[in-house]
């Protein structure tokens, strides 16, 4: 217990900043280039683990031109904050994506992140690449069920021991010894399942807000005591890709970075890759000018809404949220929440459902008390306190007036 306290005090004073270093100098990038070159040459020698789909063919089949692919490669290079000279390496890395085995498990979630990958109006390069990665296990997508599925997972863990990337989607219910969530023919709890698969993973990628920070299952009153992966698994390299759902571009970015450099991208204090979460939505928002001007949508569908005014008063949390939505958008740059006129709900921040997603400015929010249930507004709390102080003062003043002054009348 004493150790816990010391740890919590330490953590109070050692929060890391989210500062982004966009230029690390010529020498750094030359070394990195050589390192990546070597890594890709080594990967090429490895025979693809289980699928032999070639990216070139896959892309042609889906009707994406080579030119589109190269455009995607240069955009992804920029997103990963690498110099333009890395573009050929990124394109090459994309063709070697099937050399990295991926195991994808689902816990307490809605499969929204899987859906985000699978459903779109047309396959984007990001999605094609996620199709050709060597996906060894994915509960929602696989044909096998029951004991068969278990067997497949065991085989995957055995074959790729210490080499596979583990993608986790969904939060971990910790309540009643994990009995809120069990899976498989053996009724294994989500906690045991996660620990078992995590043990031999090269790294864990937590995708979506549930797997990263607990997300919606962890919202007050958090009946299942849901937690994110990083609060459950210790001693493993973890990358968080929050958002609801996580942007497929960012998932591909992380895998591609791993394929290219053999390392995971630089992370911030919440273990989010800085290339994606180092930017504040607000600073690249197309409606920012309306924010500064004080032009706000006051009501859904009013004149302001028709004129694309700022959504701050409708509760947009762009000013408080770090994500690259306003830059890369969703579905290959088609649109994003502020673009469609409904504002940001801060879905990539911890505790977003209770602290961000209430669709009004923070000062007018009914933030739930930590004990759960009771809704209290910050302003009501303050006004209540002020009223209490005012009443106290009033009583004192009235008592003073009635009692009169005790002292020395007539002396002066």
């Amino acid at each position, binding site marked *: 217990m004493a150790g816990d306290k010391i740890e919590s005090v330490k953590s109070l004073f050692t929060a890391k900043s989210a500062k982004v270093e966009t230029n690390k100098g010529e020498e750094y990038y030359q070394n990195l280039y050589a390192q990546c070159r070597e890594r890709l040459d080594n990967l090429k020698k490895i025979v693809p683990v289980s699928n032999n789909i070639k990216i070139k063919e896959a892309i042609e089949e889906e009707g994406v031109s080579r030119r589109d692919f190269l455009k995607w490669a240069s955009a992804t290079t920029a997103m990963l904050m690498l110099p333009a000279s890395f573009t050929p390496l990124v394109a090459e890395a994309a063709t070697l994506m099937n050399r990295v085995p991926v195991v994808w498990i689902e816990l307490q979630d809605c499969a929204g992140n899987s859906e985000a990958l699978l459903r779109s109006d047309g396959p984007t390069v990001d999605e094609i690449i996620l199709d050709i990665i060597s996906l060894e296990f994915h509960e929602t997508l696989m044909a096998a069920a029951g004991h068969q599925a278990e067997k497949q997972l065991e085989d995957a863990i055995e074959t790729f021991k210490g080499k596979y990337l583990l993608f986790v989607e969904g939060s971990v219910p910790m309540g009643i010894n994990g009995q809120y969530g069990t899976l498989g023919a053996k009724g294994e709890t989500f906690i045991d399942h996660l620990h078992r698969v995590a043990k031999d993973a090269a790294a864990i990628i937590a995708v979506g807000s549930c797997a990263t920070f607990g997300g919606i299952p962890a919202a007050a009153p958090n009946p299942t005591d849901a937690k994110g992966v990083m609060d459950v698994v210790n001693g493993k390299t973890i990358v968080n890709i929050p958002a609801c759902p996580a942007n497929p571009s960012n998932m591909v970015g992380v895998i591609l970075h791993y394929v290219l450099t053999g390392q995971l991208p630089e992370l911030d204090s919440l273990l989010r890759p800085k290339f994606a979460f180092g930017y504040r939505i607000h600073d690249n928002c197309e409606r920012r000018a309306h924010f500064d001007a004080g032009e706000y949508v006051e009501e859904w569908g009013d004149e302001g809404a028709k004129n694309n005014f700022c959504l701050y008063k409708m509760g947009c949390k762009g000013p408080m949220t770090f994500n690259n939505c306003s830059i890369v958008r969703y579905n290959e740059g088609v649109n994003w929440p502020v673009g469609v006129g409904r504002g940001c709900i801060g879905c990539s*921040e911890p505790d977003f459902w209770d602290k961000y997603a209430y669709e009004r400015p923070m000062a007018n929010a009914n933030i739930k008390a930590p004990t759960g249930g009771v809704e209290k507004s910050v302003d009501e709390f303050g006004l209540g306190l002020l009223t209490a102080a005012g009443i106290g003062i009033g009583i004192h003043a009235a008592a003073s007036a009635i009692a009169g002054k005790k*002292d020395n009348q007539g002396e002066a």
Partner: protein
Amino acid sequence: MKKGYKKVERMTSAMRIIHWINFFSMIVAIATGLYIAAPYYQTLIAEPAVDKYVMAWNRWGHFMVAIIFDVTSIVVAYLYFFSRFEKPYKKVLPTAKNIKEFFAVLVNLITLNRSKKFDSSHSDSFNTVYFTIFHLLLLLMLFTGLQLYVEGLESGLSSIGTWWPSMLHIATDWTIPFSHFLVGSSVQDATIMDVRIVHHRFMWLIIVWVVFHIYYQVWRTIFWQEGDIAIAFGGSKYVKEDKKAEN
């Protein structure tokens, strides 16, 4: 001057200047802060966004008074320990004398001046503790405010160099887990929104502080008949000479 009364200096001109700078800064900070938290008036002028700049001016005003507040806080912190006039920290140390005085002043307030067993010519322990609470609240506003400010400078650049955001990160990043601790949640991970909630809630605590402060100084003026309200303006008050001699 009334006969039998003696003038006592209580606030130097520097202290009074700081007092009134804080007074005006606080009014501006609250008015603009409430607008930033939830814009309470609409822009009516039919001009393009670029000409209005209403939120931007509110933020400008808020940051300007914040930085003035920060600087006066540094001066106040210095004077608290090293003032050549009166070192306030000596009055908050939990010595027997201070504790006795603290409760004597409190009893004086709740008995509506029926009992007055302390020397009211100098700054008393009760009021000094009360001012200390104010400056601690202000300090928390300062750190949380600067954290919210540096949050927007995520590029690490500023008009006065990269050292400034870096320094702010070192000085204020602890407010994120600290605010999370204050706000509380079923989720373990701290978020910048906790800092924003703390910054907003503590504004209300400061307003409550101010309400009592003004009330109490007026009450003293009326009940003690020593012209306490004049301290903030003229720097001095008057005490009966015989009383002064007693202590």
